[in-house]
């Protein structure tokens, strides 16, 4: 085979769409900033024990609520607990809820959406009708109900939030799968006789990964928000554990006298939400440069 003796050293390396997307993302300063903040938050949540200057339960009733100082960077609450430490530990709860519940949503949503979109026809119709009906349910109210009825159980919370968020994921995945399904390269591999599961894993899923990553990034802040909302109402995390929502709720009660107790947790939550949203928007623009909208 003389022709095959091509100079393999001269092979040109291609640039995959992922590499293209990453280089576009790097040019988006807001998204890079968001990514930085997210990585920073994850690190401090993991190493909270090492970083925290105090124990999160450690009270100093004599001190009471004190404004920010050299000893207590963000001040202390009414029981004299260090606010910085409590926010630090709160980030564990918030991020954990965000990531775990999103994983639940991701798993159910991608499976449901892929099956529905790939098979199409009656299966799709029934599966999507179910999603439609579930969509119409007042889920926030149900979650509140659930927390009231079964008590404030953090695992139940993960599950409940994940169970709500998968609906949108399923819809997005389905529409993506359907549009990929209509691409001619799927027809090509079908007519080559590639087994169905390999078509799905090699040709369908890699091509919907982009939108799925984007939507996942945008779901996490939504979930964090929902948890904070529940904790704010007193239906999420139980004391003495704290999440950002419960810290904000405590802050509101005393905001007239000790405004820092409201401002710092609120700021942390907002910066986190900002970063995740910027990152998600940036990823969307980078992965699909045409969809720089909405």
């Amino acid at each position: 085979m003389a022709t095959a003796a091509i100079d393999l050293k001269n092979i040109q390396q291609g640039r995959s769409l992922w590499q293209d997307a990453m280089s576009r993302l790097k040019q988006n300063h807001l998204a890079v900033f968001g990514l930085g903040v997210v990585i920073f938050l994850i690190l401090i949540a993991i190493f909270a024990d090492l970083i925290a200057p105090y124990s999160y339960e450690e009270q100093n009733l004599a001190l009471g609520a004190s404004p920010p100082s050299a000893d207590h960077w963000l001040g202390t609450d009414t029981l004299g607990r260090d606010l910085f430490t409590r926010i630090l530990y709160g980030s564990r709860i918030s991020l954990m809820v965000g990531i775990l519940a999103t994983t639940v949503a991701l798993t159910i949503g991608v499976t449901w959406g892929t099956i529905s979109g790939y098979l199409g026809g009656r299966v799709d119709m029934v599966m999507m009708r179910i999603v439609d009906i579930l969509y119409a349910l007042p889920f926030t109210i149900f979650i509140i109900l659930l927390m009231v009825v079964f008590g404030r159980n953090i695992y139940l919370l993960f599950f409940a939030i994940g169970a709500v968020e998968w609906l949108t994921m399923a819809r997005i995945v389905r529409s993506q799968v359907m549009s990929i399904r209509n691409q001619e390269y799927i027809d090509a591999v079908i007519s080559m006789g590639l087994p169905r599961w390999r078509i799905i894993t090699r040709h369908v899923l890699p091509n919907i990964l982009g939108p799925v990553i984007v939507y996942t990034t945008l779901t996490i802040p939504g979930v964090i928000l929902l948890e904070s909302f529940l904790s704010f109402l007193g239906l999420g995390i139980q004391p003495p554990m704290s999440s950002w929502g419960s810290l904000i709720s405590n802050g509101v009660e005393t905001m007239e006298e000790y405004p820092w107790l409201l401002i710092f947790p609120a700021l942390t939550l907002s910066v986190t939400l900002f970063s995740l949203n910027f990152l998600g928007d940036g990823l969307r623009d980078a992965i699909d440069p045409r969809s720089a909208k909405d």
Partner: protein
Amino acid sequence: MPILQVDDLSISFRTREGRIEAVKNASFTLDKGQTLGIVGESGSGKSVLCYSLLGLLPMPPASIDSGKVMFDDKDLLKASKQSVRHIRGNRISMIFQDPMTSLNPYLTIGTQLVESLTIHKGMNKQSARRRAIQSMDEVGIANPEKRINSYPHELSGGMKQRVMIAMALLTEPEILIADEPTTALDVTIQAQILRLIKQLQHEHKVGLIFISHDLGVIAGIADEVLVMEKGDIVEAGPVEDIFYQTRHPYTKKLLASIPNTSKPGKYRYKRDNTSSPLLKLQEVKTYFHKSHSFLQSRSEEIKAVDNVSLEIYPGETLGLVGESGSGKSTIGRSIIKLVDIHEGKVIFKEQDILSTGHYQFDRLRHEIQMIFQDPYSSLNPRMTVFDTLAEAISLRNKQNNKNITPEVIQLMEDVGLNANQIRKYPHEFSGGQRQRIAIARALALRPRLIIADEPVSALDVTIQAQILDLLLTLVKKYQLTMIFISHDLSVVRYISDRVAVMQSGKIVETGETEALFSSPQHDYTRSLIRAIPIPDPEQERLRQAATTIT
């Protein structure tokens, strides 16, 4: 005294990769009642040039670097926005390529027609409406009083383009710019629309700038022609000079690329009459059910393929030709079970494909491969060329994985691609190169039958010629049998040994290519052949004269 004079016009675009010069130093004039044809391939700058005349380019990213556009003693490029707006759509009108997307889907035809008149001519709504109805009648829309209240989606493509023409001519403009106005239409509709434009231009004495990639269309409509390549006007002159005394090598290349319907193709295969057919379709029916909603039990049945019988012999190329919606693609997809057949038999190598089991069919599948129309969606964007081809090879050859690389390289060379590029991704290739990769993928399974579904319709004419020749070479080299599906009769005549003509799900005529083209038996075939524009001004004039009489 020309009505429009363009001098030294240069336009560039700012992109991420840098500045791109879209139009370089273009100069031309247009006289009253004259038709100026602008011809070029995609990216030649022909549309950009025309959009710039009316200030329709988005700026930025576009910018006009130099030049003048003189109309009515005014430089349109320097005139105030307001005065340009008064000329635009009033004294210079435009028709666009795709009538499906060029009309506002949220407004009725009437609203869209009337507003031109109320704005430019200061007419009141009632008289504008009367005038609009009259002009719809003029462009051949039946029942205009009723149609005026329709929304665009309620009209066919040809009707929409008629509405666009009516809209453009309502204000009695001096110049009409038509940007590929028939490219999105079927060939018979194209012929009607071209005739209409010509007739109206004659009646209204407008100067017409007609942009097209199709030399046949240009030959029939233009008085003067500009040939554009990558932003340059490489050749300009009267239409006869361009076609008969071609000077520029690019124009020569363009002309050489057109598969001319008046000339038969290069290769001809002689069928051995004793051989039995490789593939036989027996009374195949493929229906689609179009149901609207969950609760609606009554569903419409569309007979995409309606009782088709066909035989394909080993080594021949069968051209399957028809207009959009004729069911020609559905036949191709029915054969490889991409769509389910309702009734009938598909017999490949003496085996009924429909009654074979899944496992057996997968083996048969390797022997029938398909090449698709759109080179942009027929390759998985996340896989390198190597991965795409290797996947196909490993499907055929499940045990031996060692020889994959040399085989991939062999395939790349077969389709004329540089083997250095095997690690690249589809988006790094041009349309023609991608189509080569798709052909390589089909060949990787060593098929006996290739179904090519409009494999060149998305490509520029020079690339089209290359791909057609590649297909012909490969068919010969590997002794392939091919079903070549296309709407383009010229291409089909060039490549096929035998032709089958389809109309609304039925095959109306089959025959040896030359016999069918020289003496078509069926009326529909005759009207199709008559509708093809010939890239030769003299012959095109004769053809048009002939069609207007009948």
